[in-house]
């Protein structure tokens, strides 16, 4: 069975304690701390805390969105998956060339203009405003909280493993230290601190990835030489689907292509842009940065497969060893330091975004579900951030099996619960409140139930059928079907000012 991979590192890395690597990593953390301190001084209101005061420029927005999109999986787990599965593993990132423009078309303008008219600051709040439904807002908030805790827990484990490999702290202290680092700047500066650290972190990721790809080509004798080595021994690895079936590889493409439109930690950044006219350039900038950063994902897996087949290195004990082994054997210590800083950067930027949207769900969306006003103070945001972090840290320090479960359902949960009501519903006047509620419930319950059953080994799906794919299909069809059945309510389910914001009047 090939389900969704855990999108974060869950296995220990080899020790990385070389002086050059440590020096670069230490410098990286010092710069992050300085940026966080600077931006924290500018965080004064809840709007600063949750949507960066709607004052972000397009470059910061695009790079931060890229950094939040890619977790440490892009640097460690992903290249390992390419090493193990061949071309099939690339299908997880293959839609990247399209998703920036798709989210721009479907979401950028509607979300930014809803923020202008209604002052919404969270993705569930946009859903609540669209369907005139605190229940839909609250349910979407619950789905986000459930996914955030799991996703965040796996990212905290991944950050701990990187810190442990760098500084030899031991697994548990390293996980706690990583959580404290991310929590401290997120609690203090919210998403404003996150955006500016993301900008630096995204730049580190893109530079590290580009340099590693150059090293891949250099040490492997060029792309053609690497390809010929692999084709001569394992042509199936370099077939279009790698070692997967066509259906399994295509299922990855579907889930990570359409599912991107439901990732709240990425799309909520549309609220933050200062000048919405600059959204014109978002897909070009975001996609360009994303593709540069993904060079490592493809390159290292390819290089390590060829080097193993050439006998230059022994086979990997675990696919996750591909990136550390490549860096320690074939890259300069300085470059290795930059890349491991890039890994930490990728994890921290994603974790920061999760903390922010989790805190926003607690303070903005759950009160709305109970008919109460949002908790508007900065202090409430900080306390909520602490609560989300502590719950995720508790999960992160739990069993490895629990982490494996939490890691797989985050992406799928976001995709199944949010794509229909958000990406389709903000663009379809015929969608109804009942349709949105039914779709969010289908995504939430379907993901939890099916992933739980699969985790407990009570069900096993054939290769190619991913639970995330099934639940997203079920949620979209439920959304359309229930909206059609309740179509008489469609007009009344949208407030007149929301119709104006969405361009329907």
């Amino acid at each position, binding site marked *: 069975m090939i389900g969704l991979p855990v999108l974060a590192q869950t296995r220990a890395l080899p020790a990385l304690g070389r002086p050059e690597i440590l020096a670069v990593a230490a410098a990286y953390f010092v710069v992050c701390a300085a940026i966080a301190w600077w931006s924290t001084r500018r965080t004064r209101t809840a709007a600063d805390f949750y949507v960066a005061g709607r004052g972000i420029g397009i470059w910061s927005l695009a790079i931060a969105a890229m950094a939040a999109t890619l977790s440490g999986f892009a640097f460690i787990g992903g290249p390992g998956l390419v090493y193990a599965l061949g071309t099939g593993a690339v299908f997880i990132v293959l839609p990247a060339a399209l998703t920036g423009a*798709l989210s721009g078309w479907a979401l950028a303008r509607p979300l930014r203009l809803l923020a202008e008219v209604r002052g919404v600051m969270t993705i569930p709040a946009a859903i609540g405003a669209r369907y005139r439904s605190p229940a839909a807002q609250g349910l979407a908030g619950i789905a986000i909280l459930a996914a955030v805790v799991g996703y965040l827990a796996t990212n905290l484990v991944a950050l701990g493993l990187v810190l442990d490999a760098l500084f030899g702290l031991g697994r548990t202290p390293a996980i706690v230290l990583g959580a404290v680092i991310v929590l401290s700047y997120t609690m203090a500066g919210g998403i404003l601190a996150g955006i500016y650290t993301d900008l630096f972190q995204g730049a580190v990721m893109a530079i590290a990835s580009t340099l590693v790809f150059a090293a891949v080509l250099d040490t492997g004798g060029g792309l053609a030489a690497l390809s010929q080595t692999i084709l001569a021994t394992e042509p199936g690895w370099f077939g279009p689907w790698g070692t997967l079936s066509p259906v399994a590889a295509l299922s990855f493409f*579907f889930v990570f292509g359409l599912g991107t439109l439901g990732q709240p930690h990425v799309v909520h950044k549309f609220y933050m842009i200062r000048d919405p006219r600059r959204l014109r350039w978002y897909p070009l900038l975001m996609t360009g940065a994303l593709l540069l950063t993904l060079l490592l994902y493809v390159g290292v897996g390819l290089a390590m497969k060829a080097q193993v087949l050439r006998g230059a290195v022994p086979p990997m004990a675990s696919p996750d060893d591909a990136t550390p082994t490549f860096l320690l054997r074939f890259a300069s210590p300085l470059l290795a330091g930059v890349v491991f800083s890039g890994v930490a950067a990728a994890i921290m930027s994603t974790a920061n975004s999760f903390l922010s949207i989790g805190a926003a769900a607690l303070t903005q969306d759950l009160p709305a579900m109970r008919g109460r006003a949002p908790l508007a103070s900065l202090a409430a945001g900080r306390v909520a951030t602490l609560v989300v972090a502590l719950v995720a840290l508790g999960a992160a320090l739990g069993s490895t099996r629990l982490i494996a479960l939490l890691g797989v359902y985050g992406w799928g949960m976001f995709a199944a619960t949010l794509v229909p009501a958000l990406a389709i519903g903000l663009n379809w006047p015929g969608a109804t409140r009942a349709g949105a509620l039914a779709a969010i419930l289908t995504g939430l319950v379907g993901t939890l139930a099916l992933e739980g059953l699969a985790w407990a080994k009570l069900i096993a799906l054939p290769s190619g059928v991913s639970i995330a794919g099934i639940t997203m299909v079920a949620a979209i069809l439920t959304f359309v079907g229930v909206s059609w059945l309740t179509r008489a309510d469609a007009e009344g389910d949208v407030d007149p000012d929301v119709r104006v914001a969405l361009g329907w009047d």
Partner: protein
Amino acid sequence: MTGLRRVGLGAVIIGTLAQGIAYLLTLRGEAPQVAAWLMVAGIAAALAGTAWLGPASPHGSRWRVVGGLSILVVLLVGFGAALLLPGGATEPLWLGLPRRAAILLLGIGIFPVLLVPTAYALDFDATDLDDAGLAALRARAASARGSAE
């Protein structure tokens, strides 16, 4: 609802249905080739449809149509070629990669970067997004809210 939006919504629904049927066939262990082709068609339709779903520009939707059609064609041709072309150890190299892998990695993974975000940029209508336009939008929204109350 504009015509293009209607087409977009239809494409998303049909694409999702195709995807669901492909999953059903795979769950039953039947017709893997049919399931793969259904997935290719479903993915292409759903993603192209998403491009067409967004708000219409008052200046026309030419570039939106181009963007969606580019997605449709690139995915159908790229995945179709990967399914149809023969492979193996003697597969020719294109730009240093085996032919079918090159079609996927470069044709689907890289080529649309030049095309689709550019179509988005050309389609983007910024005329009502300056400060005056946003103020007018807020005023119209407040007026609509006021009339409803």
